[in-house]
Each structure stands twice: as structure tokens, then as C-alpha cells.
């Protein structure tokens, strides 16, 4: 059992938890993920590590309430326990040898982008962060990004905070103006990552994307998290859990990944509603 040490509401749907998991805390590096189960009957869900304290033995996770399991997770409080918490899984983000990096985060993906920016900053890398949200109320981790970025640009879809528009707008502007990045690291919705890749393509800047497909065991056993890469004109099957979650953005077949991510959309919608209904009944 894994105790919830601290719970912080970051916005109306995004929650940050500190979980007591000393072995994971000692090992986890930015870009790696964990898998948790809320209770005995629960499903296994992967969440990327948003930070660790190896001395206190805690792991920070940040998640958005989108389905039945994250809804159940949101109902737990400080002092409650998670049934299972295993990790760190996946390969850490490759950060060596970089001088200037643009980190592009979208929505709750910023929670994963932030520790990457922090790590780069601590390594002395020049960090430009572009973080995008739908609107002002959904902005998270602004202070944290400011602390570890040489330049921070906040974008909102409706212009209610920061600049108006998508994250690709300032990225294109900077690239057009001759700004040279050794690497662009992008984490967020598949569509956003796809367009970040397309924006960077004419400039030939390497792009690392963080994939978050449907997963069960997370240890290289089930194969559910497979995705297709186009490597030198050849299609190659890779597994996000052991080969990723980071991949070369130019190689990822985003359309296929997007299609696969919707495999259980109907089931998830139904399960989410059921969980909400149960919760409402309990409240009444």
C-alpha cells in the first residue's frame, strides 16, 4: 500500500499528489513513468513522474480527471492509500550534450514537461519553455516553469491569459527569426505534438515527443502500447513501455497512435459516467 502524503488541486480538473514510494523515489528520472491501481478491482494506469524526493521517499504525480479511474483517484485524500504503485518504468529522457532546448508543453502534459525543463536548467542548458492551455483557468505550474526557464511563453487558445493561440505560433516565430535549438522536447496532446513536429520540420531541428498510449503491465509483456515508427522508409513496431515513452518525433505515426488511443472511447465514457453517478449517490 502506498500512502498519499500530500494532495494539491492545481486547477478544476488537474490534481497533484505526493505518494510515499521510497524505492521508486530513489530511482525515477525525468521522462519515466509509474503504473498505479487505486483499489483491488482497479485498472492499471500509467502516469509520468512529475518529480521525486529521494530523501523523503516521495514521488510526485500530476493527473487530469478524464475517466473512471482518475475520478476514483481524485476522491482519495491525504492519508489514504493506493493499492499499487510500481516503477520507475520506461527510459529516461535523453538530455546529455544539449546547449539550448525548447520545451513545449500542452495542458496536463506540462506536468511532465516541467521536470524535464527543471533537469535541463540544473544541467546549465538554456531553456525556452512554451506552455499552452485552453484558457486562463487551466493554467498550471506557471511559477515552476518560470523558475527553470530562461524564457517562458504562455499561450491560451482563447487568449484569456498570456498570448493568444497555439504553442506552434511562437515556436514558428522563433525558428523563422533564426533561433537555433539543439532539440525541441514536446509533451502534450497527440495533435499538438504532431504539429510541433510539422512546425520544426522545415528547420531540421530534432524533436523528441513523449508518447502515452494505452498500457497494461508497462514492463514489456502485453504489447498493447505498441506504435509504428517510420525509420528510413521502413515501418518498425516499438513498445512505449520499454522502448519509450520518448521517441523521435519525425518517426512516429501520429495518425495511427491517435486512432489507437480511441479504442475504448465508448467504454471509457460509460465507465466515467457510472463512477460519477455512484459518487453523486454517495454524496446524497
Amino acid at each position, binding site marked *: 500500500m502506498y500512502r498519499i502524503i500530500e494532495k494539491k488541486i492545481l486547477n478544476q480538473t488537474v490534481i497533484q499528489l505526493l505518494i510515499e514510494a521510497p524505492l521508486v523515489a530513489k530511482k525515477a528520472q525525468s521522462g519515466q513513468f509509474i503504473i498505479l491501481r487505486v483499489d483491488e478491482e482497479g*485498472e*492499471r494506469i500509467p502516469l509520468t513522474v512529475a518529480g521525486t524526493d529521494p530523501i523523503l521517499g516521495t514521488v510526485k504525480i500530476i493527473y487530469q480527471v478524464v475517466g473512471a479511474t482518475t475520478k476514483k483517484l481524485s476522491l482519495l485524500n491525504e492519508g489514504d492509500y493506493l493499492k499499487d504503485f510500481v516503477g520507475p518504468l520506461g527510459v529516461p529522457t535523453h538530455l546529455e550534450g544539449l546547449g539550448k532546448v525548447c520545451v513545449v508543453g500542452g495542458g496536463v502534459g506540462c506536468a511532465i514537461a516541467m521536470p524535464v525543463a527543471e533537469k535541463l536548467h540544473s544541467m546549465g542548458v538554456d531553456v525556452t519553455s512554451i506552455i499552452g492551455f485552453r484558457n486562463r483557468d487551466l493554467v498550471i505550474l506557471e511559477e515552476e516553469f518560470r523558475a527553470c526557464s530562461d524564457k517562458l511563453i504562455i499561450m491560451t487558445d482563447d487568449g484569456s491569459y498570456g498570448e493568444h493561440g497555439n504553442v506552434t505560433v511562437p515556436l514558428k516565430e522563433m525558428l523563422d527569426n533564426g533561433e537555433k535549438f539543439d532539440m525541441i522536447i514536446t509533451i502534450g496532446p497527440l495533435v499538438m505534438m504532431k504539429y510541433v513536429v510539422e512546425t520544426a520540420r522545415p528547420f531540421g531541428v530534432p524533436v523528441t515527443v513523449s508518447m502515452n498510449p494505452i498500457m*497494461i503491465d508497462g514492463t514489456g509483456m502485453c*504489447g498493447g502500447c505498441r506504435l509504428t515508427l517510420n525509420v528510413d522508409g521502413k515501418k518498425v513496431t516499438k513498445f512505449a513501455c520499454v522502448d519509450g515513452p520518448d521517441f523521435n518525433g519525425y518517426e512516429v505515426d501520429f495518425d495511427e497512435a491517435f*486512432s*489507437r488511443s*480511441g*479504442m475504448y*472511447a465508448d467504454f*471509457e465514457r460509460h465507465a466515467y459516467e457510472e463512477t460519477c453517478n455512484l459518487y453523486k449517490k454517495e454524496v446524497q
Partner: protein
Amino acid sequence: MANINMSLQKNPMPTQTPKERASNFEEVALGYSEEVAINEAMRCLNCKNMPCVSSSPVKIHIPEFISKIKEGDFEAAYQIITKSSSLPAVCGRVCPQESQCESKCVRGVKGEPVGIGRLERFVADWHNTFCNEDPKPPKSNQHKVAIVGAGPSGLTCAGDLAKKGYDVTVYEALHTAGGVLVYGIPEFRLPKAIVKKEVETLEKLGVKLETNVVIGKTLTIDELFEMGFEAVFIGSGAGLPNFMGIPGESLKGVYSANEFLTRSNLMKAYVDAPSTPIMKGGNVAVVGGGNVAMDAARTALRLGADNVYIVYRRSMDEIPARKEEVEHAIEEGIDFRILTNPVEIIGYNNPDDKKDSKNGCVTALRCVKMELGEPDARGRRRPIEIPNSEFEIPVDTVIMSIGTSPNPLIKSTTEGLEVNKHGGIIVNEDGLTSRSAVYAGGDAVTGAATVISAMGAGKIAAQAIDEYLKNN
């Protein structure tokens, strides 16, 4: 011995009727009653040279335990089995006895061999039902051994070492112990309560179990030694599923057998209102002819599929699954499309509506007809494609059951651990790897194989670890 039962046939195993069982997840085989068990035991001639024992991978004293059944002393029979096997209730259910202990039975020369597997299962179930006495942990010898993976090889190795007084800790990556016994083999062949009971028995012997620890990630092999373990056994099991490399394998509705079975078994997607989803209903094609393919097909059927096909490129004579599993599958109505090989999986695509949720879902499996040619190096006749024989089977789900490759996690974080070209860990005849005091066995070494061969490997390694630590 007087009273030998000279019947040429085994006592049949009572089962649920095919019609009944095709729609439930209850166990198919119901087990012998006491009377039937004694009657079957009477078929054993108690041969002096015991050919059955020499062909048992874990060397169970078979004639000895069968003699106790003849006397009606079922607990004594259990105590004899448990000296050699740590998982008798499991073995009695899922082991291919026909190609192991029973294959050398003298009664099998003229007629059917003694139903050793069925008797083993009877004895283990009898013990689990009627005996509440906990096994006593032996006196500790103060030596610490770590086991990686709580599957058949790891649990066997753990049990054997614990019985010798070792302080054994088993590390399991998943949230439940059992490995393939809980994520792979379905409830209707091996009820999970039985696996749980066997694991509890090991815990009562003093075996410590740590779930949610991925060796190679959470802890490395080297860290285990730093923690004071003096030897390590790696039984991390099979790894990533293989795919055919044909177009359409990433469509919605294409599973590896590992994923399909894990969703149903480990994650309980077969219950009402599960928290883990699985595609069910419609038509399902399972590609492959092994035991795992049979498990996947019969699971799909029970989940409510209209038609389930086994698509296999050779003929019924070459099918690698156990005869009993194939027979059960046929009885239940699984449709065998033999000499058939998939070439493409076809998906739905609505050109007028890109947001149509059916886009990208499987609609059919395109196959070619095969014929058997000359035998290959292993003596199996090689399937050859018949030109212009393409046809489609309309399906909604495709399950690829064509084997696995060993898991890369431990190899990539353990310096000096040598693997072969398939990724399997290289071991000597004692299960010792290229690293001192590191042993390995089961699918992590051999690639996908059977539960009993994994158990045999765990047993050999336990013996070798005992020798090694006694002499150090």
C-alpha cells in the same frame, strides 16, 4: 499388489458440458471423486524401474503417491507429491502429462496410461479442501536468496529453497503473484483461487513476497547483492509479443494473445462492469495453434463472441497445442481454419466522415490457403502458399498468438549477463548464468515454453543454489 484395475482406459475426467461451459468462466474439468481416484490408482502397476518418475520434470515419486491413494490415505499422497512439487494443484491441471510422466507409463503400451495428472490434481484438491494444517517453516540456515518473478519457475525455486531453510524473497513486477498462471492461463482452466492458495502455502513456509517491484528498474540484480542476497534466480518469464509484420496490425481490435488474456484474466475484464475494458462479441480470429491460442479462442467465446476462428498455417497433425485443449476447443464450437495464413488485416474507413468512431476498427482478415511441402530441418512439413487463393474472413477482433521474445529489462541493466541471439539468458546445465551466483530458468531462458518445464528449471536451479551456498 492385488486388485489391479486392468481397464485399458483412464477413468474419464468429468467436465461441464460443452454447451454449458461455452458461456461461463467456471472450471471446465471437475475433478475425480474419491472412488474414481482410487479406481484409477488401481491401474498403476507400481513398476520397479518407475519410467514415469524419470520422465517427470520435477521427479515426483509417482508410484509412491499413487500407492497412498490406493490405501485411501490422500494426505499421505499429498505429502509425497509436495516433497517434489511446490505447485501440485496447478501442475495437475495445466501440465502436458501425456508427453511427460504419462508418456512412459507401462499401461500406455497397450491402452491408455494411468491418469497421473488427474490423480495429482485430485490429491492436491483433497488436501486444499480438507487439510487446514499450515506447513511448518523449517529451521532457518541464515542464507538469503532473491527470486525474480513469481511465476512457475520462480515459485518452484522459492518453495524448494524455503523447504531447505533459506530466507527467500520473491520480487514480482505485477500486483499479484503467479506470473502466467494469473495473467495468461484462464480461470476456466486454472481457477485463480487455486494459484492464490498455492502461493499462500509458500508464504506459510516462510517465503516473502514483494509485489510491484520490477527487477531491472526498481532494483537491479547488483543492488540485490548489495542488499545481502547471496544468490539470485531470474525467472522473469516471456517478454514482448511477436507480431506477423503484415499490414493492419495496429488497427483497433488487434491484440496480442498476452494482452487479450491479461485483460481478461489478471484484470478481470470478464466480470460484469469491469474496470478494464476488452473488445468482445462479434467474430474473432485467433492466429496461431499453440496452447495460448486455444486459451485466447476459448476466452473470446466465453466473452460472447458469435464465431471464433483458429487460423493456423499447417494442418491438424502439426498443431502444437495439447490434444485435450484442441478437443475441448472443438467441442465448444471453435472453428479451425487450418492451412490458412493471414496476409493483411483490413480496417473500416469512412471517406466521408473522418470522425466516424468505426474508422480504424477491424472488419476482416485477408488470408491465403496453404499446402504442406517438404519437411524442414525439424522434420515438420513446411507450409507453402497456394497461388491466387486469397480470401477474407469477416472479423471484428484479431488476436495474434505467435509467440514472444524474452523481456529486455534485466539484460539491459545487468552487466555481464549473457543472452543468446533471441535474447534468452544463457545458462549451463545447473541454471547458472554468465554471472556468478546468478541463476535463471523458465521462459526467460528458453523463450515461450510450458509451465512444467519452467518448474523443472526452477527446481534444478534451487538444487544448484543450495550446493553453491553450502560450499561457500
